[in-house]
């Protein structure tokens, strides 16, 4: 796999990094480099331009409401358009938690303020108010014949439109809205999810799926070779055990 490079545009790394999102970037980097794939990451803050032809993967992490508000403004003014363009060109996108919410049409905060999203995913998120139950806890999701594990912590309820599919089905936890059993969303090469923990290190198969999706645009039928995931798999299995045991107890 010589000569290959995964180019990542990391949206708002300083503003949106609240839930160990660094782990996701470290994971992409490690899993690429172990296969001899070059890894480049470019942090794009408020005001920085996004070039849709300049990246294979766009990553956005979680943020607090206050930061999300500033990001929403920047999406509307600076990055929203090229982001849509990138999605149209099948650039891969991974958006976690707050980043996921802002990929949708809008996010209505606990105070009722409506923050416009980038609109690349046909979904919207509504926070029912400051006294509504937050969805907090371990999550296990059935995905692609296997499982995803992580931790969710969100007040907003996300409802998918007709144009997108849930990323997976909730086995333990709340997921998008605690009602329809769906977690996350997929559309073209865009992946949105509430799972952090960090998400990718403990879900090596999903991490590889994201890398492959990103690189297949330029290299059809591209496949990653297997690497030693002993510790990754042990951490994944332990997380499944903890989440499912606790959900039975309540």
């Amino acid at each position, binding site marked *: 796999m010589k000569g290959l490079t995964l180019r990542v545009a990391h949206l708002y790394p300083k503003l949106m990094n*609240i839930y160990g999102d660094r782990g996701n970037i470290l994971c992409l980097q490690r899993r690429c480099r172990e296969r001899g794939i070059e890894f480049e990451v470019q942090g794009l803050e408020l005001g920085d331009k996004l070039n849709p032809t300049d990246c294979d993967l766009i990553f956005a992490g979680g943020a607090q409401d206050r930061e999300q508000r500033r990001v929403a403004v920047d999406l509307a003014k600076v990055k929203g358009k090229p982001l849509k363009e990138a999605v149209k060109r099948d650039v891969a996108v991974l958006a976690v938690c707050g980043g996921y919410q802002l990929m949708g049409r809008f996010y209505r905060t606990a105070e009722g303020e409506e923050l416009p999203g980038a609109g690349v995913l046909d979904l919207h998120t509504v926070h029912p108010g400051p006294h509504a139950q937050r969805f907090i806890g371990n999550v296990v999701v059935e995905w692609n014949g296997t499982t995803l594990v992580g*931790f969710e912590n969100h007040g907003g309820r996300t409802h998918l439109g007709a144009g997108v599919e849930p990323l997976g089905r909730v086995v333990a936890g709340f997921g998008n809205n605690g009602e329809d059993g769906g977690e996350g969303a997929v559309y073209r090469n865009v992946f949105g999810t509430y799972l952090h923990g960090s998400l990718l290190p403990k879900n090596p198969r999903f991490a590889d799926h994201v890398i492959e999706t990103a690189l297949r645009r330029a290299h059809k039928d591209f496949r990653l070779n297997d690497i030693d995931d002993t510790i990754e798999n*042990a951490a994944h299995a332990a997380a499944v055990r903890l989440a499912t045991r606790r959900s039975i107890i309540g």
Partner: protein
Amino acid sequence: MVCQRGRGKKEVGRRKYNTCVIRRTAAVAAAKAAAVLSRRLRFGGGTALPGLVAERIDPDIVPALVLGLGQGSVLVTGTNGKTTTARLLRSIARAAGLRAVANRAGSNMMRGIASALVEAAAWSGEMASAGKRLGIFEVDEATLPHAASSVRPRAVVFTNLFRDQLDRYGEVEHVAQVWRATVDELPSDVTVVLNADDPAVASLADVARGRVITYGMTDTSSGVGTLEHAADARWCVSCGSELSYEAVCYGHLGHWRCPQCGKSRPEPDVQCGRLDIGAAHLDLTLWLAQGHVTARLPLTGLYNAYNALTAAAAASALGLDRVAIERGLNAFTAAFGRQERMQVAGREVQVILAKNPAGLNQVIRTITANGSQTDLVLFLNDNIADGRDVSWIWDVDFELLAGKARSVTVSGARAWDMALRLKYAGIQADGGSSPHVEPEPARALRQALEATPAGGTLYVIPTYTAMLQVRDLLARWAGRGAFWEGE
């Protein structure tokens, strides 16, 4: 206080007063009995149960009993450093000839305060030597509003604000808002003691009605230099711009300034003018309005220098004199889980609690500071008191440990998460092997002791509930009493 409610008609008032006194006495008696019972049955030292019982019988027990504290009370809150700061302050109070009434380490919600008051009170609810009694209560960030209205303190001390257990406390911004609202409602005779180096804390001065005393690190030579990944308050509270730093102490603490609106770190009233961090001691010189204080403390790490500075600022806010501050700091002894040293199986063992990125970064810098290879065991639990979300370990700079560890053991309910994080950080023990994973705490602790050379030091770094497990094991193996005795 509450007993005097409804004084409209004299007769009714008197009858109400009597029932109130009866209820209060019953509450104190039942709580004292619960304390004795829970200690005898070894229910974790009875730190919260008596308070729980007392509050159940008399919901106004705390506002009533604090009236017996002739010197009033001080609350200490913030993400990190509450326990050590409160403990340092107790040492100063003792040196000033006062008798502190304080909640036990980590038992920092209302029931912990109620327990402390009940324990100090006589069966009648009266406080012996009331004139010398000073309440020193460490208070959980989220409990602060309730504690402030029940205890009616003379001073409220804020240490710092870092991301911590987001699943429990909510977002950092939420905690900041709760604090602002609380400070805004404090009566004007309450002094607010603020960390000038933490932009989120320093800005509480904007809403304070009463006296404000600030403290800060003037000697920044021990600082980390640049903002760490775990830095949180890097945005200006007033205008939202990114802050610039002339010097960074750790996390987002330092000499900050907003290049946009010009808001900047206030010139602190109490300063740490000189700081030397040794392997086992801190030597510091503090500048107070009353003069200089020099102290040597059996603690290490920059974060503990902040704790000493905070305690001195709190003491001067309470009007305690310079001599008492100096004597109190120099007489300080470390507590379990806060760098206390003990001998177990021919090794020195130091247990250092770490529960969030800023804290653990400081611990890692501290234990690797002297350059020698370290032996350590990390315990990661995900119970409610630890924070159920373990994502935070990805915000810790474990990379600082690479090449500096001789033996590494990981344990706890989330041992494999920690093992994975360390793999990413490139942590390999001496022989190039991965960290040893043993989820079961007793076995892990024993194996970590065996991996430590005789005469060497083993650092035990647990999250909160893991600390309680480790404490009991070590107390047994070291042949000493349980932690709450003599604390």
